[in-house]
């Protein structure tokens, strides 16, 4: 009887210890995020105001410069990357999840995971060699292509996970009413996976929005607006990089502020994505 009680007590103790340990780890993860965001805000708050978001940069020494062109540039770069890479990522994911056993599928699967581990600066170099050198100028287009190369494997792998998570019973149900594979995909599987596919693309977009290396010698930088797609453009990450390595205190403050803006933008995309997913699930589970 006593041995049973002591066994129970030791189990209780180890359970409490594990709970504390896992809790500590979870808190660490959250603390890192809060810490980074808080530090950025503290450092950058002085420079963070409406003018900062709405104005163009000004030369060193003048006050009141902003990052409006970098905000717009980053938005254009990310949108271009999504437009270029999302369709092949989604269609490729459909192929990989529905035709799993073909030789092409296993080749694509291997290629995707290799592409996913290509360092981002290599993607930038590749675009520099193939587009920038040939066109003889930096451009939004080249930067968007470099980001698309990074977005493609990320979005594709997440989309494959989303499609493979659909239960086989759904496939069987569609086939059992006489659906062809295309009808099953277009009518049942893709609509069922739509929120998860959207989030796959959005989360990958949020990830590439912060990439600096591939933009350094593709989109380069620009102190002014960059209309169209064929001129060098400013972007948030490159602006942060340029300001942060500069010797000027004013620019350092702006780098902190721009970093805070970038982080908030990326977090917002993630939160919105989760909101979309949650809303969908709730509407399905309201039973």
């Amino acid at each position: 009887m006593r041995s049973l009680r002591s066994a129970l007590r030791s189990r209780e103790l180890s359970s409490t210890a594990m709970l504390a340990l896992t809790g500590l780890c979870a808190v660490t993860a959250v603390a890192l995020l809060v810490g980074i965001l808080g530090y950025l805000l503290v450092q950058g708050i002085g420079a963070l105001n409406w003018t900062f978001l709405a104005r163009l940069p000004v030369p060193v020494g003048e006050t009141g410069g902003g990052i409006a062109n970098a905000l717009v540039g980053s938005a254009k770069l990310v949108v271009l990357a999504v437009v270029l890479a999302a369709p092949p990522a989604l269609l490729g994911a459909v192929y990989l999840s529905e035709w799993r056993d073909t030789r092409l599928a296993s080749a694509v699967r291997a290629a995707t995971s290799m592409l996913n581990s290509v360092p981002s600066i290599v993607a930038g170099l590749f675009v520099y060699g193939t587009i920038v050198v040939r066109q003889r100028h930096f451009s939004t287009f080249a930067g968007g292509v470099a980001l698309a190369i990074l977005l493609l494997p990320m979005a594709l792998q997440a989309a494959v996970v989303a499609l493979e998570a659909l239960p086989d019973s759904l496939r069987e149900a569609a086939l059992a009413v006489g659906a062809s594979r295309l009808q099953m995909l277009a009518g049942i599987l893709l609509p069922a996976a739509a929120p998860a596919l959207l989030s796959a693309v959005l989360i990958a977009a949020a990830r590439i929005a912060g990439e600096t290396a591939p933009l350094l010698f593709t989109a380069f930088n620009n102190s002014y607006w960059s209309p169209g797609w064929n001129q060098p453009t400013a972007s948030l990450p490159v602006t942060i990089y340029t300001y942060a390595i500069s010797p000027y205190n004013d620019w350092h403050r702006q780098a902190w502020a721009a970093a805070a803006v970038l982080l908030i933008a990326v977090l917002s995309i993630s939160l919105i994505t989760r909101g979309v997913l949650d809303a969908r699930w709730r509407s399905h589970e309201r039973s």
Partner: protein
Amino acid sequence: MHAGEAMNVPDCCQNAQTASAMRDEADASVKIVVQGLNAWYERRQVLFDIHLRIPDRQITAIIGPSGSGKSTLLRVFNRLHETVRHARVGGVVLLDGLNIFTLDPRSLRQRVGMVFQMPNPFPKSIFDNIAFGLRINGMRDHLAERVERSLRRAALWEEVKDRLHRPATELSGGQQQRLCIARALALEPEVLLLDEPCSALDPVSTARIEELLIALKDTCTPVLVTHQMQQAARVSDFCYLLLDGRVIEGQPTRQLFTTPRDPRTEAYLTGRYG
């Protein structure tokens, strides 16, 4: 149909039916004839030389312990086994005398509907669950009437008529299963395959579905796979017992349960097997 195949019909599953398969072809009272059917998953054989016949507009039950090959056999009837990787079959399955392996699988599946073990409604509205199959099969005219008729036949109309455009996932498990039956019935199938349709349901829902099956007999041929012997005894007219991928015995249900011919049947029915 070759005469050589007709000779293969063994006497295991027939009493007065020593009739040859040639005669069955013309016999309107037999809906499905299976001859010498073997099935494998990779190298593992799961069905061995199956011979059986499914009478038209009667409920045929296929009983047997888990892993006896009942579900595999059922899935061959609408060729859904072909979606399983490394599944292979050999032999002949005739639907109204036509070899199903020569038919287009999509038109076959319209004629031979299926209801699964777990209710699997589409993540769509109640209406669209039924309309999907109608639309893809070109039955677009009178869509709303067809949806209503199949919901009525599945005894679900009264419960859902005011919320046809709500998600099907809001329904209870038993309602979802009746929706799946309605979805299959909408295509006006000649045969309705049911793979343990009540195993996830409570007794009340089970009773409703059993009543429903009996009512369906006037328009189609339900084939019910179940591991519940009592269910087979309650609803079926004809009953086959499968053990380890082989047909042990097939008889009118009452005879099978009261005077089984094979000692293994008696052993199974009295709980001494499987």
